[in-house]
């Protein structure tokens, strides 16, 4: 019964690597965008704050599938054609940026103002306060939420299979249709996602312990 999976393990593994690559790329780009967004939302400019709020509301309030259709099918109509993989990474990055910016905002808001004031009194510059007082504490506070977002990102990346990116879900579909064994094929992909999730959670737990010891 599981023969099929053993025979097709290379295909599935390729899919797993694509899933991992797309998610990792989206995570990094999304982190940069998310930080910029949270800075805009905390910033002094009112119109920019509104722009950021509308952006957040759209990317958090609509399904990823629709967002993916927009980037992949709608942008070409406006003259911007993207390959499936790029469209996938762009969509996931723009989506996770919205969710990550909320995490960053909440994390920084949780640091007592008194600490920032104290750092200023001690002669630390605003930037060095941000880097050496606020960020280290905020990271520790944000870690569980960030891990949750990472898990969600890997999970969401399965949707890129609908625009023909050969991720793990797409590969499982191909195996299912060539072997007529949907149960085993999708079951194997399920295990793959589960393994990724456990790996990420384990990594986070280890990080959390390490930070706690500092």
């Amino acid at each position, binding site marked *: 019964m599981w023969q099929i999976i053993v025979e097709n393990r290379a295909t599935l593994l390729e899919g797993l690597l694509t899933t991992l690559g797309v998610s990792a790329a989206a995570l990094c780009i999304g982190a940069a965008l998310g930080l910029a967004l949270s800075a805009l939302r905390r910033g002094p400019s009112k119109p920019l704050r509104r722009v950021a709020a509308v952006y957040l509301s759209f990317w958090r309030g*609509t*399904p990823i599938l*629709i967002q993916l259709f*927009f980037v992949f*099918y709608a942008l070409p109509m406006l003259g911007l054609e993207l390959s499936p993989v790029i469209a996938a990474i762009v969509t996931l990055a723009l989506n996770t940026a919205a969710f990550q910016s909320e995490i960053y905002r909440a994390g920084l808001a949780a640091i007592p103002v008194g600490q920032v004031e104290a750092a200023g009194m001690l002669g630390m510059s605003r930037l060095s306060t941000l880097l050496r007082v606020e960020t280290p504490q905020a990271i520790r506070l944000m870690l569980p939420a960030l891990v949750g977002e990472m898990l969600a990102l890997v999970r969401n990346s399965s949707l890129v299979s609908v625009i023909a990116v050969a991720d793990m879900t797409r590969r499982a579909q191909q195996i299912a249709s060539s072997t007529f064994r949907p149960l085993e094929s999708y079951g194997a992909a*399920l295990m793959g996602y589960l393994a990724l*999730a456990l790996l990420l*959670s384990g990594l986070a737990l280890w990080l959390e312990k390490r930070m706690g010891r500092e």
Partner: protein
Amino acid sequence: MTLDYLALLMQGLAVTALLAALGTLLAAGLGLPLAIALRSGRVALVTPARLYVELMRGVPLVLLLFLLYYGGPSLGFRLPASWAGVLGLGLFGAGSFAEIYRAGLAGVPTGELEAARMLGLQRGQAFLQIELPRALRLIVPPIGGQVIVMVKESAVLSIITVAELSKRAGELSSISFSIAPLVVAALLYWVLVEMIARTSFLIEARLSAKDIL
């Protein structure tokens, strides 16, 4: 965009709302025994419940739907796409609901429960009159968020051919070579999500108002 298109999209919206609602009800129901198992303190119950929650946290809904819809016949059951969709949504959401219930109940200070018992309330009375109302206030905001997640995740049902809003929008968009159906669909989702958020906020405000503590 013609009126026919709009009518089709509204039909899709109705299907989305209905299936998301059914999936949410199923998830909210299945979440209860899971939460009880999580709080039971017995390893034989906690471990499988915890495994289930973690599994659903890490696994994409689309794979779950493929397993139910395409894999079902190998297991001897053949479900219509929309039923497979509701079942998938329910199984997927149950883990999150269980966590919400568990966290809500854990958020009620044990001292209050002890005090209630000291004042002579039975265990059941203390649960119904002290723990439950307090926990309800704690779980309303995350439940609102989870309902929104369910609506958004229900778009995935389009992949197993359910004719809900995303499916309609995708089809209409490719027939007409226009992004208008997608824009309208996005707006409809947005309105639905905003409505859920507002409702959740109202319920939260009412629950807090009733509480004089």
